[in-house]
């Protein structure tokens, strides 16, 4: 049997809980600090404005392009490379009384002078009102997701575990947002999708651990809650590592091969999965213990022996 981990007995994971919790708190505070001071580099979807993606026939000189965009309509344009030196992304802010069409036409005039063979690959315009609504809806979506999960986990497990898992999720979301803020990565709708997926994924991990905790509370009648949690984490450790690894592999594939349009999405997932794995072990379980989880709390919830109805599913 080829194994990554072959642990006999249990490892005292909770021994490191306090230093790791301090690290978590620092990371969360740091993220919040960055969010408060630097804010998030909101993408077009949320701010409104116009984006033009161009493909030049040769390497494009950003400074020359920038110098070409000096009219009232195109002033304040952000010019950057997008993927390769030939691909250029130009972001134009919303301007009172100026139509997006006019802005785009002027950009095209300016760049065609530089390279007559330039190709307009993509143009996106989002009105400021629509952007504001999307931002509100997006924030709401994350909140609703967390509340739904809180309810579901309380219903399936126990409120201490539910609170632990939701705190872990909030922790993941805040740190992911913090990274986007710190490095001023663009936050658009696909990144929001990434963050919500992280919520789902991180919870997945937490539930696997909790499920084992619940099972072990009933099996290990004489052990302390700490021992139960340690044993449960140890038992699920190799699964956690393998699943995280396979998921990371596909996310890295997306990050490297998926192209520029889903780069932000892949980045959010990459961050989130990494942080999420840690938080489900440390934040969620540790918090549940601190909230005083013990064997009695597990009793009212009937453990469903779902294995019993397995045969029905068989063909």
């Amino acid at each position: 049997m080829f194994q990554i981990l072959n642990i006999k007995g249990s490892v005292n994971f909770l021994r490191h809980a306090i230093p790791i919790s301090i690290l978590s708190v620092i990371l969360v505070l740091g993220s919040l600090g960055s969010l408060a001071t630097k804010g998030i580099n909101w993408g077009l979807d949320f701010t409104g404005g116009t984006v033009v993606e161009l493909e030049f026939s040769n390497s494009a000189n950003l400074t020359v392009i920038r110098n070409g965009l000096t009219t009232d309509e195109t002033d304040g344009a952000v010019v950057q490379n997008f993927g390769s030196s030939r691909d250029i992304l130009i972001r134009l802010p919303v301007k009172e009384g100026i139509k997006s069409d006019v802005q785009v036409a002027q950009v095209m005039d300016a760049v065609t002078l530089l390279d007559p063979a330039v190709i307009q690959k993509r143009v996106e315009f989002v009105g400021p009102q629509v952007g504001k609504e999307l931002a509100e809806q997006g924030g709401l979506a994350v909140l609703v997701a967390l509340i739904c999960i809180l309810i579901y986990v309380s219903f399936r497990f126990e409120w201490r575990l539910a609170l632990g898992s939701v705190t872990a999720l909030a922790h993941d979301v805040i740190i992911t947002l913090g990274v986007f803020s710190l490095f001023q990565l663009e936050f658009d709708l696909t990144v929001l999708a990434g963050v919500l997926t992280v919520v789902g994924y991180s919870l997945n991990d937490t539930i696997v651990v909790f499920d084992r905790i619940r099972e072990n509370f009933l099996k290990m009648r004489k052990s302390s809650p700490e021992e139960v949690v340690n044993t449960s984490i140890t038992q699920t450790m190799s699964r956690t590592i393998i699943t995280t690894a396979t998921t990371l592999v596909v996310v890295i594939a997306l990050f490297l091969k998926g192209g520029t349009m889903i780069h932000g999405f892949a980045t959010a997932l990459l961050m989130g999965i990494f942080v999420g794995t840690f938080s489900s072990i440390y934040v969620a379980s540790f918090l549940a213990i601190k909230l005083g989880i013990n064997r009695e709390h597990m009793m009212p919830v009937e453990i469903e022996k779902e294995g019993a109805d397995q045969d029905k599913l068989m063909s």
Partner: protein
Amino acid sequence: MVMIIIAVGAFYAIPNLFGEDHAVQVVATRGAEVTASTQSAVNDVLVSKGIAVKRSELENGQLLVRVNNGEDQLLAKEAISDALGDKFTVALNLAAATPEWLESMGGSPMKLGLDLRGGVHFLMEVDMGEAVRKMTEAKVADYRTDLRAEKIRYAGIRNGAKGIEIKFRDAETLANAESFLKSRSNDMVFTDRSTGDNYFLIANPSDVYLKQIKEDALQQNITTLRNRVNELGVAEPVVQRQGAERIIVELPGVQDTARAKEILSATASIEFHMVDQSADAQAVASGRVPAGSEVYQRRQGGPVVLKKAVMLTGDHIQGAQPSYDEYSRPQVSINLDSKGGSIFSNVTKDNIGKPMATLFIEYKDTGDKNADGSVKMKKIEEVISVATIQARLGRNFVITGLEHAESQNLALLLRAGALIAPVYIVEERTIGPSLGAENIQNGIQAMIWGMAVVLVFMMVYYRGFGLIANLALTANLVMVVGVMSMIPGAVLTLPGIAGMVLTVGMAVDGNVLIYERIREELRNGRSVQQAIHEGYGNAFSTIADANITTFMTALILFAVGTGAVKGFAVTLMIGIATSMFTAIVGTRSIVNAIWGGKRVKKLSI
């Protein structure tokens, strides 16, 4: 059972392997219809030009002719549009090359989103403020005439900040006016806002009425946009409402946004003219028209001579509904605003018994451009109805002598001539076809790499059981594609492909959970059969709980996301459902088939 479900999934995934045919699509525009005779005419033209037709289908009033390659497609388009004239729109299209037998069983490939296919996406917002303003202005005029006719003296009426403000000199008149106006319609809600010697009555639209106005404005715009999009000759356009005030327009394959926008925002208008009865048919046919008159074409065909003087323009039209008279003959009831009503009443009183024509004017894209790059528009004028004036007409009148379908159409055209509220573009996304193709390439690349690594790892780590998991993983991917193809509304987008890739990574989780559990049970000294049983049994509730929560977040994403992100949520949800099936039920049945009921000493895990 398991095999059947997977086979069905695989079956519906098959159409995705066939790629697309180059095709030409023919749609009727102005009053014409695509029929079997159109089809044979098209076929004859193509045969005479030596263009081989792969398949020609007539469906939902549109004709789709498949040809062998892109070159033939362009030639065919030209030939067909020359042959059919401007009553039909001929567009280039890519049609799924699904074999007929598969198609007849409901098989069709996944629909690609704009980010993969290229095209334009518009989000348009109806100016509801304008719709409400128009309505209140009409009401102000109404109240003025109504109160005057009823001899209720008011001091002033205006459209104020709080609604329509009607000022009176005493409380008694106010009460009279209120009860009178209330009895006329229940559209409006009246409140008495008198202070001291100022007697004010404020009228505001009721919530129901307000909703009705907005709904009408939205519906009208959708209808108009749909008509215009059809004129564009785009294959598979989407025009649908989003929420209470917005309309999504998606035009796959369209690259020239400027042109699309001009057509979508083109205005149509209506004019009423008197028919010039002095002109005789022969003279008209030879081109001699009396001074002050002009020849126009009827929509149904045939010329008609109209006086140049415009009796009334369409912006006075407030509403036009198809209805029936007391003999249940179809008619169109029209109401004008008060100014239009008085103009109309003046001009019609001298023309009783004479025919009056309704002229529909519209600007249509010619496909050419002016020197300055703007789109060359052609003015199209058509007489849509000729009716005899029976009596002096006021603000409300009907046009009779119509067929049922005609009355529907006329009402629509009349309304289109006077849009209740303008629309403006609040979001626009244009994706070039090269970027679309690039996106597909990238997505597939990422999927291949991700999947390859996962497959190799599973095989090395779990050996025999790993192979089973790999089978399940592959089956899962096939099923996601199959289900995506089966659901008519599901659209594959770039984030959608990312969702599929992600599913690959996460779908193995189910198997990992089960296998780790089996290993653990084996370590604890259980027999092989017991270990398998316990492994599947104990892992089930964990897998279910974990997946249900991911499903919930996907559902929320589906609710708030737009376009591409919705596509991601859909693939994620489908992926979760199918992966649970393949990871638990699918692998168990293989495991049972191999090791079930036997005395096994050692498992390949």
